[in-house]
Structure formats: C-alpha cells, structure tokens
C-alpha cells in the first residue's frame, strides 16, 4: 500500500483544508442571519439591548468571517494545484458555478461587510440594516452555488461527455440536480444550528456565572427558540435527504448502513457494528429488524441494495461513513432533546435558573460543528471512489505532482492552520467568555433620532 503517495497526500490535504474551512462559513451563515434579525428588532423596537447584542456578536462574526475568507482562498486554488485532473474534466461545469458564487455572493458579502462592521456612524440606521441584510443574503447565495456544485458531483445530470470532458447541456438541470434541494436545505439548517448552539452555549456560560442582564438572557432564549424549530425540521429534512440518496447513490447508503447483502422482505438496521471491507461483513452488529427498511424506504419490507451489489472497486469505505453517520444522527437526537427540554423549562418558568440544563447546553456548544463535520465526511467519503459520481474517479482527478510537493504543502498548511486558525478560535472563545457589554451602549441610541429610546423599558420589561 502506498499511503504516502501524491494521491493520498492530496486527499488528506483536501480533507484537512476543507474541514477547517467549512466550520467558519457555517458560523458566518448562521451568525449573519442572526445579526440581521437582531438589527431588525433593534430598528423595530428601539430596544438598545439588541444593539449591545449586535455589537457583541458582530465582533465574533467578524473574526469567523475573516477566517472563512482566508481559508476559502486556499480552496479556490487547491482545485487547480492538487486536482487539475478534476478541474480539466469538470471545469466546464464547476468553474462557471464557482464564478457565479464569487460574483453573486462573495462580492455582495465583501462589499457590505465594511459598512456592517465599521459604518455605524457613517450611514443611516436603515442603510446599516440594509448592509447587514446584504451580507446575510450573500452568505445564503454562496451556500446555494457551492452546494449546487457539490451536488452536481454527487448526482450529476444535464451534461454530455465530449473529448473526455464533462460539458454542460442543460444548465437548469445541472444546477437543480436531484440531490441539490435536499442538500441545500440540510446544509443551510445545519449552519443555523451551528450558530444557534454557539449563541446558546455562550448564554449558558454567562448564566452559570451569575449574569442575568438582558443581552445574556435574550441570546440564550432566542437561540433556544430557533433550535426548537430547526432541530425537528432538520431531522425531517435529513430523512428526505436519505431517501433521495438511496435512489441516486445506493452504494453510499449501503456503506452508511454497513449492509452487505440485498435482503428481501425487510432489511434490519445495524445500530452499531464494525464494517469489514475485506471480509465483506459487519462484525458485532446490533440489529433491529425491519427498521432499516422503515427508515430508508418508509415501508415495512422495502428493499435496500447491499454493498455486494457493487463491484469492490466501486464501494465507498464503509467503516468511516458508518460511524460518521451515527455521530451526526446521534448528535441530532441530542439536539432535539436539548430543544425540547428548553421548551419544558421555559413553560415552567425555570429556563434561566436551571443549572444542570445550562451545563448541558454549554457542553452542546460545539455539537453543531461536530455534527456538520460528521455529515460532510459521510456524504463526501460516501461518494468515493468518485469525484463526479459515476463519471470521474478520484484517482484520475489528481494533478501530476510529486509526493514531495504534496507532502511539503500539506505540512506547511497543517502548521499554518493550527497557528492561525487556532489563534482565531482562541480569540473567538475569549470574546465569548467576556460576554456582551453591559449597558454601556445605552447613550448611543440618542444618536439615532429615528429610534425611540426605550432602554429603561426594555431593562425593566424582562
């Protein structure tokens, strides 16, 4: 086995850089919309506590966004440096999609970010809100294009092959390929959940430390409302996404479930187990009869293809996706529990005073990020051995580079990422530990004649 050849090193590098990268945009996507809501409430109510919250979370957003931009530049060039086979063959499709992302999303975000972060005293409150809104919309448009591109790689359609290259035939079919709507919904909600758990955990921490001021309580409360809606919706969307995957990428489902045989009359679900690619079995499996069919086909005895239905060289590596999927799904269930417990405590009026619950939410802070990463590993490793499913193999996608180049660049990137992004995360955590400022911004609302100054009402009202 040549584990340290250019091909494997390039894969390792991509997995590493994209995993670090994805964390920051996910935070930005969720946080930008949260900030837009905060500013909308500020404009609508004039309650300056919203402004304190905005200032606090926008600083954390700014660091996250900056990290996302710089780690994203790496991605935009990595396709060329490490994956020139892929960019030659699939560039006619993924290139224009990326161009659209840059044009319609990146510029929108960057063009209004300056005003959003530094423009409070330079533009009117409405113009400022407009800037925040544009940044938030920009992050969502960006999600749209990049997931369209990614989904095309998973479930390609609307293309033809000419001279060994994938060329577009019908752009609408390319963009709205079969897995795209599901993936887009799943990812956008995931990003909101990532941000919501960060906000909630930060609130929980300050509640545990004894703070009871409005920005802290309201951050905690708003995040839990969002989670109460999104956690169950995400499970439903995930389920629909699973059905879609079974239809278009059955090998991925077989690998996720550790299924080897195609069983008739109902397939059991492996709760846990250890898939063995060589022996073609899943060892020590704990099974629940018929549950596999029930979940994946919504019927008692629906048929699910096993891995043996696919040639050995076409099978995704089951031991990874089997477990990453279970981590994601398990965290999803915990999230639902957290949200429901929150509702229950809220109804009993104990939300801000229940310490064990605050500890629980605090520990759940990174759960959104973990679930997101686990989900991405599942879908990306599950697509293997293809970069464009059924069309272009990963092994044919790599650049003509040597192991030395791939290895040195991997080493450099690992060191730089740990240094830079480690520090970035450190400061984000440090700011969150400090918490929102308490009441110092109150006087500033006088600068905005359009707002009613209801600072006192707001503080006494909660």
């Amino acid at each position, binding site marked *: 086995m040549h584990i340290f050849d250019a091909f494997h090193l390039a894969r390792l590098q991509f997995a590493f850089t994209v995993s670090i990268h994805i964390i920051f945009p996910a935070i930005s996507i969720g946080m930008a919309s949260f900030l837009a809501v905060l500013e909308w409430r500020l404009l609508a109510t004039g309650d300056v506590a919203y402004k304190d919250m905005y200032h606090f979370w926008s600083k954390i957003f700014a660091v996250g966004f900056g990290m996302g931009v710089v780690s994203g530049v790496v991605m935009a060039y990595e396709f*060329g440096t490490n994956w020139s086979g892929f960019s030659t063959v699939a560039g006619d499709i993924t*290139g224009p999609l990326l161009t659209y992302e840059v044009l319609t999303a990146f510029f929108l975000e*960057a063009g209004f970010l300056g005003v959003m972060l530094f423009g409070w005293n330079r533009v009117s409150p409405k113009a400022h809100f407009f800037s925040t809104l544009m940044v938030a919309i920009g992050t969502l448009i960006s999600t749209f294009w990049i997931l369209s591109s990614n989904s095309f790689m998973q479930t390609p359609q609307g293309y033809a092959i000419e001279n060994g290259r994938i060329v577009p035939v019908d752009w609408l079919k390319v963009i709205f390929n079969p897995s795209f709507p599901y993936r887009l919904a799943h990812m956008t909600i995931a990003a909101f959940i990532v941000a919501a758990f960060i906000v909630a955990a930060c609130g929980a921490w300050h509640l545990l430390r004894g703070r009871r001021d409005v920005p802290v309580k309201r951050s905690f409360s708003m995040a839990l409302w969002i989670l109460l809606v999104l956690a169950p919706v995400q499970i439903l969307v995930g389920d629909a996404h699973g059905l879609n995957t079974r239809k278009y990428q059955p090998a991925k489902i077989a690998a996720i479930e550790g299924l080897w045989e195609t069983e008739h009359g109902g397939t059991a679900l492996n709760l846990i187990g250890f898939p063995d690619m060589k022996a073609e079995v899943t060892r020590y499996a704990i099974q629940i009869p018929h549950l596999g069919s029930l979940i994946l086909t919504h019927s008692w005895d629906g048929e699910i293809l096993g891995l043996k239905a696919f040639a050995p060289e076409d099978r995704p590596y089951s031991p990874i996706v089997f477990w990453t999927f279970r981590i994601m799904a398990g965290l999803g269930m915990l999230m639902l529990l957290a949200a429901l417990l929150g509702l229950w405590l809220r109804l009993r009026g104990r939300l801000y005073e229940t310490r064990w619950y605050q500890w629980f939410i605090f520990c759940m802070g990174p759960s959104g990020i973990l679930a997101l990463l686990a989900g991405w590993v599942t879908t990306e490793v599950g697509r293997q051995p293809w970069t464009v499913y059924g069309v272009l193999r990963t092994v044919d996608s790599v650049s003509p580079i040597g192991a030395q180049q791939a290895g040195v660049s991997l080493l450099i990137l690992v060191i730089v990422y740990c240094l830079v992004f480690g520090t970035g995360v450190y400061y984000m955590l440090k700011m969150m530990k400090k918490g929102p400022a308490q009441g110092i911004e109150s006087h500033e609302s006088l600068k905005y004649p359009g707002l009613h100054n209801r600072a006192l009402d707001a503080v006494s009202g909660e």
Partner: protein
Amino acid sequence: MQIDLPVIWAAIIGLGVFIYVMLDGFDLGIGLLFPFFEGKGEREVMLNTVAPVWDGNETFLVLGGAGLYGAFPVVYSTLLPANYMPLILMVVGLIFRGAAFELRAKATRTQHAWDLAFIGGSALAAMCQGIVLGSLLQGIKIVDDKFAGDPFDWFSPFSVFCGFGVLITYATLGCGWLILKTDGELQRKMRQLMRPLTAVLLGAIAIVSLWTVLGLPAVEARWFASGNLGWFLPVPILVLVCVATIFRSVRLEHETMPFLLTLAICFLGYTGLVISIWPYIIPPSLTIWEASSSHSSQLFALVGTVIVLPVILVYNAMQYRVFRGKVREGDAGYH
C-alpha cells in the same frame, strides 16, 4: 456573426486581475510599509485605512481564479500545478495577513508577532504573485493539456526578480494610498518615502522590460518585428511621464495625484505585459482559443458576469465613498 467569447473572457479576466492588482496592491503595500513605521498609533491608522475594504479587494483574486477555472479550465489546471509552491506560499501569506487584520487588535502580549505576520504575509503574497507572473512570462511546458515541466521550473533569476518588481509596485501603491488617506506627520513621512520608492519602481520596470525583451525571443519579436512598434512605443514614454509627474506632485504636496499616477504606471506596465503575450494565455503553449471551456460554459458564465459585474463595481465604489476622507487615530476600525 459569432461572438468571440474567448476574447471577451480574456478581457474580463484581464480586467479582474488588473482591478485586483490595483486594489489589493495598495492593501498589501501597507503591509510592506509597516516596517518603516514603529508607532502603535501610526500602524493602527495605516491598517484602518483599509479595514473596511481589504476583504472586497481580495475577492477580485478569487474572481480571477474562478474566472480562469470557468472560462479557461486548461489554464487553471496547468498554470496552477506549474506554480505549485509559489501559490501555496501565496495563500499562506494571505492567511497570515488576513488573520492579522482581525487578530492583531485583540492580541495584547502577542501584538508584535501579529505585526510580523502582517508584514511577512504581505511580502510573501506579493513576492509569490510576482514569481507566478515571471514564470508565466518565461513560458510553461504543456503536453496534452497537462503540465509537463519540472516542479521547480518556476524558480529562476527572472521570476524572482519579477517577485521583487511586484513587491516594489505594491509598496509604491500603498505609499500613494496613504498620502491620500492620512494627514499630518504620517502623511509627511509618506511623502518622503514616495520619491525613493518611485525611483526604485522605475528601475524595476526598466530591468523587467529589458530582461523580457532581450531574454525572451518571442517577446522581442512581438515588440520589434511585428511592425507595430509605433503603436507600442507610447507605453514606455508614458511611464516616464508618470514618474516625472509623481516627483512633481509630491513636491507640490498634491494628495491624490501620487496615488492616481502610480495606478497609471501599473496600468501601463500591465498593458506592456498584455502586448508581450497576446494572444497566448500561457506562452508558448496555449492561446486563449485553445484553452477555452465549452461555448455553453463561457456563455452561461458571461450572462451572469455582464449583469452582475457592473453592480459589483457600483457597490464597491459606494463602500469606498462611505469610508472616504482622512483616517485619524481613534477612528472606527480595528483597535
């Protein structure tokens, strides 16, 4: 008549790269000028002149990459592996300096380290961009749409000198920008720096020009043998005029002229480059037509570009307008 899409796309990418050089040039240039200014207050002002816009400036680099990827995938998948190390180091430089923007103000004990990261990152990114440019001018070996050279083909005295050329260009742009955006003592110091920087820039342009013309026969033929010398000659003459006017405007304490004229020099240098390589996109291997993606891909991306790019330029300009005027100590920004 069939529209010649590859030409349009080459123009769009050319424009994108030029806007990038213009904008991120002064932005990176500030990092290059950092070592000359020790004061905490001075450095903060320098950073805050670009705080609201650096991110937008850098987006043009991503546009260049994405545009190449979409319109000329072969270029993307050959130029990039050929310049593997410089590009990796460039993004590393950009990571360090981008992070320094956000983290510098938050760090107290380690602020010096982040200043160093900002300086080093800016210098590394500028240097590597110059090296990539140099290696492109030298030519890249391509067989069957794949890079077929040696991993260190990019490394040559010429490409390294191009790296220095870009470094000095960006520093001059940064200096011009800061004359425009600052006042008082800091502006005075910038004025003092502007003249030696411009002189070195002129020297660098002269050497790179001579080197390409004398060292690269294809370029020589383009300039002297094509019978168009009369058309091309204004380029070097205008460069000289610009340099002379910069000296004069600095003496007369003009605020915007030095920056605008440095931009003009960049534009002229860029024009010279285009003259040297057109219609190749990777000399001597690929012309823009040979490197193009399918008609449908170029058309699809063009529709969006034609609609969106003007809007982008407008709101980017608006952002500059919102943040117009001098930046002083204590203004909103990174603190």
